[in-house]
C-alpha cells in the first residue's frame, strides 16, 4: 500500500492538512499514558537501577573482590589480576569501573530505551550516588577504606557508569528496535 506516485502522496497529505481538528477530543488518559511511557519518573528509574545494583553488585564480588570483601570465598579474582598487571592505584580505578559497568550492562535487560534515557539525563549524579552508597555498604560489611583508594574507586565507578550508559544508549538507539 505504498504510494505509487508523488501526486497520490500529495493528495493524501493535503487531506490530512485540511482536517479540522477543532472537534477532536484527545482524552487526558491518552496523553498521560504516553507521557509516562516517554518520560518515566527519574525516581522510579533510579529505584530500578538501585535494585539491579544491589543484586548484580553483590554477585560481582564473586568475580572481582572489592576492598578485600569476598563473600563467596573465591580463589580467583579480577582484583588480583588488575593488581599484578597495573599496580594498586589502577587496580582500584578498574575495580570501580567493573563494579558499575556490570550493573548498567545488566540493567539494559530491565530498562526501556526511555528509562535508559532518563538515567542518561542524570548519569553523573546517579553513578556518584550509587558509588557512594556502595562504598558505605562496603564499610558497613567490614571493608577497610583508605581515602585515596576510595577516591580512585569512585572515580572509576563514575567513569565506568558514564561509558556504559552512553554505549548502551547509543547502541540501543541505533540498532535495537525495542
Amino acid at each position, binding site marked *: 500500500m505504498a504510494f505509487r506516485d508523488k501526486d497520490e502522496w500529495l493528495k493524501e*497529505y493535503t487531506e490530512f*492538512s485540511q482536517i479540522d481538528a477543532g472537534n477532536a477530543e484527545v*482524552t487526558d488518559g491518552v496523553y498521560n499514558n504516553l507521557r509516562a511511557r*516517554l518520560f518515566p519518573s527519574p525516581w522510579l528509574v533510579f529505584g530500578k537501577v538501585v535494585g539491579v545494583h544491589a543484586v548484580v553488585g553483590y554477585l560481582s564480588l564473586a568475580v572481582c573482590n572489592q576492598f578485600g570483601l569476598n563473600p563467596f570465598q573465591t580463589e580467583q579474582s579480577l582484583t588480583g589480576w588488575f593488581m599484578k598487571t597495573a599496580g594498586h592505584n589502577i587496580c582500584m580505578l578498574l575495580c570501580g569501573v567493573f563494579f558499575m559497568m556490570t550493573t548498567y550492562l545488566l540493567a539494559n535487560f530491565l530498562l526501556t530505551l526511555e528509562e535508559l534515557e532518563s538515567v542518561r539525563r542524570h548519569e553523573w549524579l546517579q553513578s556518584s550516588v550509587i558509588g557512594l552508597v556502595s562504598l558505605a555498604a562496603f564499610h558497613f560489611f567490614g571493608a577497610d577504606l583508605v581515602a585515596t583508594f576510595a577516591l580512585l574507586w569512585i572515580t572509576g565507578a563514575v567513569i565506568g557508569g558514564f561509558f556504559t550508559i552512553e554505549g548502551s544508549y547509543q547502541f540501543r538507539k541505533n540498532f535495537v528496535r525495542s
Partner: protein
Amino acid sequence: MANNDLKNSSDEELMEIYKVGDSIAFEILFARHSGRIQVYLARKVFSQREAQDLLQEVFFKLHRSRHLYDSALPFSPWLFSIARSIWLDHVKKRKIEKDYELERITALTPSALPTPIVELTNGNEFLERLPENQKEAVGMRVFDEATFEEIATKLSTSPENARQLVSRGLKKLKAVLGKRKD
C-alpha cells in the same frame, strides 16, 4: 527558553529542542497535532478507540525517531508519514491475524469440524440461513469432503473465493452456535 517562548516557536524549532529530551516541547507538539492525527486515524480505522491507541503509537514512534528529523525540512509532512506508516503497520497486522483465522478455519477437515457444527449443518435448519453460495460451499465441504478446487469448479469461482465462502459460512454457523448456547 521560557514556556511562553516555546509556545510561540515553530514546529521545527520545537523539534530541535525536543531532540535533546525537552518534555515541554513534546507537550506543545502533542497539543498542536494530536487532534488532527486522531481524526485522520479514526477515518482510516473507523474506531475511536483504535485511533486513540494508534495515536499513542504515532507519538511513540516520533519520540524514538526524533534524532532522525532534519529541522531544515517542514515538520508536518514528516509527522504525516509517521502517522501513515503506523496505520499501514496496523492494517498489515490485522490482515495477518485475519489470514491466520481464515487458514485455521479452512484447514479443518470435515471430520475435524466441531460436532455441534456438523449437527447444525446436518439438521439443515441452520444451513438454510446461509446465502445460497455459502450454503452450497459449506455443504460440499462438510458432507462431500470436497476440496476447495472442486468447490470452485462447481460454483464457477476461484479456489481462493471458495475458501472464503466456506470460511464465512462456518463463521456464521459458529455465531449461530454461540447464540444457541446462550
